[in-house]
């Protein structure tokens, strides 16, 4: 079974107090590395011969467990960030202070904690106890006991049995060192400000009703045809002649040194100027930074003009996370001067 790279579930540039650079590095390097390593470990496990020494198997199974945990927890972590309706003044979530949690959430956990503040204190203190080390704090719903509890994990391998994680906080130092140094209190505070409570409540609803946790892939909310990074890699490997269009906004390009190997940057605001350069009967894969808007809009325009176009789910960030090749971009300045 191949582990696929999930597009990042949150727009990394929209978080409050968590830098885009840190979130993207976290997603592409840490999460992406876990996905790639898991696939390697699984291939090695599949190829292991019957006579292989037990310590080889033990080492691989340990890594497999750790990587499965890392992949799942990271997806949940990014998924519960980006709360655009965070609890706060005028949020409609019933709290005058954004430090507090929304009423709907407080009601959910009321039976298992003395108060929402008591829950928060325990969750935060658990996270602070992991400062300078590694680990996770997970608010989980135990399906067996029908109750919520705050679980600590000191690495990716630790998880509560028969429990659904509904709120996940990464306490590995890669989650905060770049922006906060050793100041975990500031990081945890900032995390709370960015919690997407709608997502958390949806997870709770699923967990309570014994359903799998919701699909949080942002690409699943559109009808515009799309292609995954794995499918695109296959197209390239098979020499299908796929045309790859880098449609990141011009200001985004000026901040980034590289692009996908084999791609050509095209200004998403000037489709009419370059559309004639595309070959009409070959697939066009369009990507933007994270796969939310720009790539989709360009893809829609191309389809309206009769092209077989698809947007890349998760954008170039998912491509890098999957280990896809990158190239130094041709100088954007002179490219623009030509126009």
């Amino acid at each position: 079974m191949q582990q696929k790279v999930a597009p990042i579930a949150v727009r990394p540039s929209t978080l409050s107090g968590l830098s885009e650079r840190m979130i993207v590095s976290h997603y592409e390097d840490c999460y992406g590395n876990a996905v790639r390593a898991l696939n390697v470990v699984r291939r090695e496990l599949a190829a292991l011969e019957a006579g292989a020494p037990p310590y080889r198997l033990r080492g691989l199974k340990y890594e497999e467990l750790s990587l499965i945990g890392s992949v799942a927890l990271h997806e949940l972590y990014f998924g519960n960030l980006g709360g655009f309706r965070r609890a706060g003044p005028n949020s409609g979530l019933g709290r005058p202070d954004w430090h507090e949690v929304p009423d709907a959430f407080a009601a959910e956990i009321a039976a298992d904690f003395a108060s929402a503040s008591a829950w928060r204190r325990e969750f935060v203190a658990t996270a602070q106890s992991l400062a300078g080390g590694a680990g996770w704090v997970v608010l989980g719903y135990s399906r067996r006991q029908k109750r919520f509890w705050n679980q600590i994990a000191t690495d990716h391998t630790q998880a509560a049995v028969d429990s659904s994680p509904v709120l996940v906080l990464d306490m590995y130092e890669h989650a905060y060192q770049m922006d906060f140094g050793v100041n975990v209190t500031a990081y945890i505070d900032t995390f709370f400000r960015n919690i997407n409570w709608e997502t958390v409540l949806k997870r709770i609803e699923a967990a309570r009703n014994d359903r799998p946790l919701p699909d949080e892939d942002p690409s699943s909310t559109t009808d515009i045809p799309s292609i995954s990074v794995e499918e695109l890699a296959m197209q390239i490997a098979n020499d299908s002649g796929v045309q790859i269009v880098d449609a990141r906004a011009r200001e985004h390009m000026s901040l980034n040194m590289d692009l996908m190997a084999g791609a050509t940057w095209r200004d998403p605001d000037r489709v009419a100027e370059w559309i004639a350069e595309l070959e009409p009967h070959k697939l066009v894969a369009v990507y933007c930074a994270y796969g939310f808007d720009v790539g989709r809009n360009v893809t829609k325009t191309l389809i309206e003009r009769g092209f077989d176009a698809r947007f890349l789910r998760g954008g170039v960030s998912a491509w890098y996370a999957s280990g896809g090749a990158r190239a130094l971009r041709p100088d954007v300045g002179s490219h623009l001067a030509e126009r």
Partner: protein
Amino acid sequence: MTSIAKPLSCDPTKLRGLSEKLILSHWENNYGGAVRRLNAIAIQLTELDFAKAPGFVINGLKREELIATNSMILHELYFDGLGGDGISGGAIDEALKRDFGSVDRWRAEFIGTGKALRGGAGWVLLSYSQRDQRLMNQWAADHTHALAGGTPILALDMYEHSYQLDYGASAERYVDAFMENINWINIAALLLQTQAPGERGSEFEVWGGIR
């Protein structure tokens, strides 16, 4: 027993590819934090009535004591190992050749083990095993992993606090920078001391040893 934080043994402004900010934050917060934590735990342990205390309290304190003690010792070793030019020679190279086949082989193994710990936490330790009378590269996924009976002489910190500020998630570049800054003179002194316990090498011998 009260533990006292040692002064930083390397000059944090002189390291190549490791910023002063990074080293000072690492030393003050992570190393200093371990020492302070250890002292707080020691007080609690002294005051604990072991006959009556519940097992989980004892387990918790003793586990934290082990974590903080090892963290303190390994961090001291880490900073002591920095501040050099990364070029080994003499007695160190002979020992590495003896135990790993070649210096390059040792290097590849040590660096590879460090890079394999990217994105997580841990240590890579070059340790002398009294039992086997040889050097080994030891992998540790946290402060508590240690080779039984081993004496570490070179410690590479792979906790993300040792590189995130300078390198983000790019652990590979950090490991390469660390190797460039190893103070082999200090390591050679430790090796000499470890292989012949009780006879602390004089500065002259240490210098002579790596020529």
